[in-house]
């Protein structure tokens, strides 16, 4: 029995080694996988950081074209005191706003002075297109400034009449934001966690399909099945090879985030966002079940297809599920139930977010998140090896 098991191990290792050498030589697929999984994340990070930074900049150095500045010199003076660059608006300002050349324009009503003199509110119109994300910071800033002037003016009037301003402001609103610095920048957190998960699908896909559907398509499966290698050995050897590639791609993806956040010239956006060695380690711990589970599932999907193309079509369903679950969690905006730890992908996404908020995932939750993947790995591998042992795998060449 001991002799049998050593030769089984030797055969499994031979299969593992062959698949690694074979797939390492597939340069084109390798480059595409690495580019899509490894570079996409950091590129998104840089884009998002620049977006946040440029919005902050727009709000800080607000340029405000004004129509009818001559009707309300006091308003203009206030705006200029607030470091706003006031200019005369062009005649076709609404067209320019629609095109996105201008963010926001202030239009002062030509009856402004007479209305105010008669004790009626003067009309100041803000013209903008809120569907433009880029303009949002400028719009908010302009609106805040005008409201600020409105309050200031009102308080001055009350004071002239001997009334304290608290009469008109019975409510005092104080903000107490309990988010630690790392808890800000939710979009950045989402992206990093999302790409970590995404990498664990992408990393194993090409290899898993090549070693199952590809093996069948190029007619090398039948000779392979006529060797003394048992179906179980073939499956475990191939699975380990896919896991190795998946681990490599996930590791490089995380390294990409780490290096981008540490060394890339990202603009300072006031989000002291942490992805250091500690987060790297926690990510690895959380993603480990995925790096073992997804290759098993990919092998199963691949083994059901007769050709690589067919397998690719089926894998897109898996890709859809893996990318949808975190989206659902992001938009659900509710406290996640305890059983979420039993849902693969969702559990990992949740734990990745915990790690990114600077907290350590609870050991109990971590253990729970391993349960279903472990079970599914066994089910998938047994299913693949049963398929390989079936006569129908030979038909339909």
């Amino acid at each position: 029995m001991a002799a049998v098991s050593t030769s089984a191990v030797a055969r499994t290792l031979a299969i593992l080694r062959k698949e690694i050498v074979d797939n390492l030589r597939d340069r084109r697929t390798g480059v595409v996988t690495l580019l899509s999984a490894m570079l996409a994340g950091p590129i998104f990070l840089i884009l998002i950081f620049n977006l946040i930074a440029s919005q902050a900049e727009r709000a800080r150095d607000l340029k405000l074209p004004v129509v009818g500045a001559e009707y309300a010199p006091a308003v203009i003076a206030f705006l200029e005191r607030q470091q706003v660059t006031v200019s005369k608006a062009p005649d076709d300002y609404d067209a320019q706003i629609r095109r996105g050349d201008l963010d926001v324009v202030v239009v002062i009503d030509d009856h402004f002075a007479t209305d105010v003199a008669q004790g009626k509110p003067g009309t100041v119109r803000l013209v903008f297109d809120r569907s433009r994300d880029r303009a949002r910071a400028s719009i908010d800033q302009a609106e805040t400034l005008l409201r600020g002037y409105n309050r200031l003016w009102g308080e001055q009037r009350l004071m002239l009449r001997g009334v304290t301003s608290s009469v008109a402001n019975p409510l005092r609103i104080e903000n107490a934001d309990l988010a630690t610095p790392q808890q800000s920048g939710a979009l950045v957190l989402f992206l990093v966690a999302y790409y970590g998960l995404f990498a664990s699908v992408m990393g194993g896909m090409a290899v898993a399909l090549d070693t199952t559907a590809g093996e069948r398509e190029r007619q090398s499966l039948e000779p392979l099945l006529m060797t003394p290698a048992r179906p179980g050995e073939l499956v475990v050897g191939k699975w380990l090879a896919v896991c190795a590639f998946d681990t490599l791609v996930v590791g490089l993806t995380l390294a990409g985030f780490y290096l981008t956040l540490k060394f890339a010239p990202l603009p300072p956006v006031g989000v002291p966002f942490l992805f250091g060695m500690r987060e790297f380690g926690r990510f690895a711990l959380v993603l480990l079940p995925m790096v073992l589970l997804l290759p098993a599932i990919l092998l199963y999907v691949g083994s059901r297809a007769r050709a690589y193309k067919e397998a690719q079509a089926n894998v897109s369903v898996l890709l859809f599920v893996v990318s949808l679950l975190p989206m659902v969690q992001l938009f659900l905006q509710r406290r996640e139930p305890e059983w979420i730890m039993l849902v693969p992908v969702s559990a990992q996404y949740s734990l990745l977010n915990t790690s990114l908020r600077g907290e350590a995932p609870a050991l109990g939750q971590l253990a729970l998140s391993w349960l279903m993947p472990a079970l599914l790995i066994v089910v998938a591998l047994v299913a693949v090896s049963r398929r390989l042992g079936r006569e129908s795998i030979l038909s339909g060449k």
Partner: protein
Amino acid sequence: MISVNGVRKAFGKGGEVQAVRDVSFEANDGEITGLLGPNGAGKTTMLRIIATLVLPDAGRAEVGGIDVVRERYAVRARIGVLSDARGLYPRLTARENVRYFGKLHGLAGRALETRIDGLFVTLGLTDLAERRTAGFSQGEKMKVAIARALVHDPDTILLDEPTNGLDIMSVRTLRDELRRLRGDGKCLLFSSHVMQEIAALCDRIVVLAHGRVVASGTAEEIVARAGTRGLEDAFVALIGSDEGLAA
């Protein structure tokens, strides 16, 4: 030595496709036995049963006295199969392709490399040994597939339509190799739907039609039994049609 006794095999729901119905024959060591029959006669199914890939519904098949159902892995260690599916790994070199199968057969190290060197010399593959098989011609790929099937020095060799898609030079190389193996005392079972192919090479012929053995013996015995002038007429008379005769 292959012996097949009363083997049946049906496919499909409820077994409506009877691929092999009651086949018995023997193939001796030191001989090339031809399995001749038109397309759909059950040749591939019969070879796959002997190669342990397909389980028979009834009957027994043995290779060297070992049952193909009960001891399928022991049988696999003793057979080399060159089937219609002879895909190689294009990103691996010729040597790596053969080495992989050698390892799966439990060979390793110096012994394995020496074995591969020997096979490559015999097959004229030495110059191609370290090249990836992606750019190989059909004939070169076939040679690598033969080396792969023989790497563990099997005493029984099964060939399913081995000349499909080969040019004349490659067919000659294959025939020479098969004769050499016969000279080494191996048991060879060779299936083809082309009568001339079988006649040129085989010592004994088993004619299959509609999943049954309709004749077996040497070419002379078959002609004598059919009462025709040549093997071609005998073949037509036996299977009841002229499909499978090379034009």
